């Protein structure tokens, strides 16, 4: 087990280093000279030279990268040009709303996606299956932010049932917070549910064809028992692997959904940073997301191994 985790880390760490190089390289894409921007009105060559020296812009690029990476490893992702807070503080501040959105969306996705996926596989070819497929494909084809706009038009503008904006922290007023989170969670969760349904369906279809499910049916076991105890347990493996991919979908969806519903989270942070040309924040967000994604992949691999006894034997 330990050796497995170590082996996976041996792949994940170089990948993360490469990601950090790419993220560092992003700032080299910027047109113009950052020092000139920093110097502002003051175009005194001496001041510019001092700034260049102070920020290490005279060093070769690989040296600049090493200095930057050293600071990142010490938890220093730089300072926001806009708010003058450290990027780490900003990230810590903006993470809770996004985590809440992610958890609520995931609950909705699991509650809808897995049962419909199973049902659709079991009733393959019937109208239930067709309907579920059409709804799922529509869910994948609808842009998150537009679904958000439609929900606001219906439930806020027309019916006045739910607030369109007005996020309150969960700690402040839990009831108001949950009411404000209904529409955003449905928007993000709906897209995830569609993806999850399609993957559950195809995983279940693969398993339902196998010999042991046929044997279980032949033994006269009741269908729901066969489906849950025999088929679904085996269909879980590809679904777990999928969950890491869904994480990407989740964050992408959160960025736009937070923008539509003005939720002060991670997604709003990156979008505001993009518009304020606050590049340190953009770099910090990308690096954190990538690190989280690699970590999740690692966890998924370990979980995969724990639930699949065939992989546990030493190879």
């Amino acid at each position: 087990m330990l050796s497995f985790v170590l082996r996976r880390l041996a792949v994940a760490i170089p990948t993360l280093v490469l990601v950090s190089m790419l993220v560092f390289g992003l700032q080299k894409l910027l047109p113009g000279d950052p020092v000139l921007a920093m110097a502002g009105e003051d175009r005194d060559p001496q001041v510019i030279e001092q700034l260049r020296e102070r920020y290490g812009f005279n060093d070769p690029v690989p040296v600049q990268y090493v200095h930057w990476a050293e600071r990142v490893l010490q938890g220093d992702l730089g300072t926001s040009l806009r708010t003058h807070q450290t990027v780490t503080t900003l990230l810590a501040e903006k993470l809770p709303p996004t985590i809440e959105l992610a958890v609520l969306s995931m609950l909705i996705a699991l509650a809808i996606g897995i049962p419909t996926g199973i049902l659709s596989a079991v009733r393959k070819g019937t109208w239930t299956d067709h309907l579920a497929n059409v709804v799922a494909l529509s869910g994948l084809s609808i842009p998150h932010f537009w679904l958000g706009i439609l929900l606001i038009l219906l439930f806020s503008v027309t019916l006045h049932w739910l607030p369109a904006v007005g996020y309150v922290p969960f700690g402040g007023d839990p009831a108001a917070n949950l009411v404000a989170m209904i529409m955003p969670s449905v928007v993000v969760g709906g897209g995830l549910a569609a993806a999850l349904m399609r993957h559950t369906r195809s995983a279940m279809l693969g398993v339902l064809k196998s010999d042991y499910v046929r044997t279980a049916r032949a033994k006269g076991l009741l269908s729901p028992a066969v489906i849950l105890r025999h088929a679904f347990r085996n269909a879980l493996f590809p679904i777990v692997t999928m969950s890491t991919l869904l994480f990407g979908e989740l964050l992408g969806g959160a960025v736009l959904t937070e923008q539509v519903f003005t939720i002060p989270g991670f997604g709003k942070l990156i979008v505001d940073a993009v518009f304020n040309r606050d590049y340190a924040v953009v770099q910090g967000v990308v690096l954190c997301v990538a690190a989280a994604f690699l970590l999740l992949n690692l966890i998924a691999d370990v979980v995969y191994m724990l639930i699949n006894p065939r992989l546990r034997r030493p190879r």
Partner: protein
Amino acid sequence: MTSRSLRKFLNHHSALAGLVVVVFFVLVAALAPLIMPDDPLKTNFLAVRKAPSMAHWLGTDELGRDILSRMMLGARASLLAGGISVVIAMAIGVPLGMVAGYFGKTADQVISRLTDALLSCPFLILAIALGAFLGPSLGNAMIAIALSAAPIFIRLTRGEVMAVVQEDYVEGARAIGLPHRWIIVRYILPNILSPLLVQATLTVATAIIAEASLSFLGLGQQPPSPSWGAMLNVAKNFMEQAPWMSVSPGVAIFLVVLGLNLLGDGLRDALDPRGD
């Protein structure tokens, strides 16, 4: 496409429906200047935010411009962005995937680690970050989307090539000493075209949503030129006063993307030699 695949495709109702929808929008985009009822950039302050009517079938926007005409011109931006970014992504991804899959060893190690690194960042976040650093414009949005989608094609091509390389006819071609380039172009490429075609169709759908998302955030098409995402970006400020502004661009994105997804799924079924 063999005649068997073609027959399967023609019997696939949802795929044909998808094809019809996609062809319709491509025609609208191509013929936009000829069929637009009005000048999509002409403002008219006497007809600001008018609801749909006989004069303006889809209503007018906040500057009195005809929404139907803007939708038609916007179709160009959205479809071109989707198509071109996927072409660029394939131009980068397919050769790299081939090198990795065919030559293996160090080339594979380097290319695969780079792919892992790019894939470790969610597609849309990578595209937004790249768009931010490249600067807001439709062209840059296309580059950002292409770079974010390239690793998908690297990984797919690599896997397919590795499977084909094992085949006897490739081994035979190697044994008689054909040059690598010849083997790749004549023996390998034709055998991996089907999965690439399916992936390309589905990725155009993703790219159209990505372009709409970037334009919605203000990182894509810049005013006054229309794109569906950019129109929604403005429309969200007038949800109470002019809700129709939010409806049509979203419906168009949804229909095109749904059409492409149906088409992609259908192509996958038709081109899969196993499924019957």
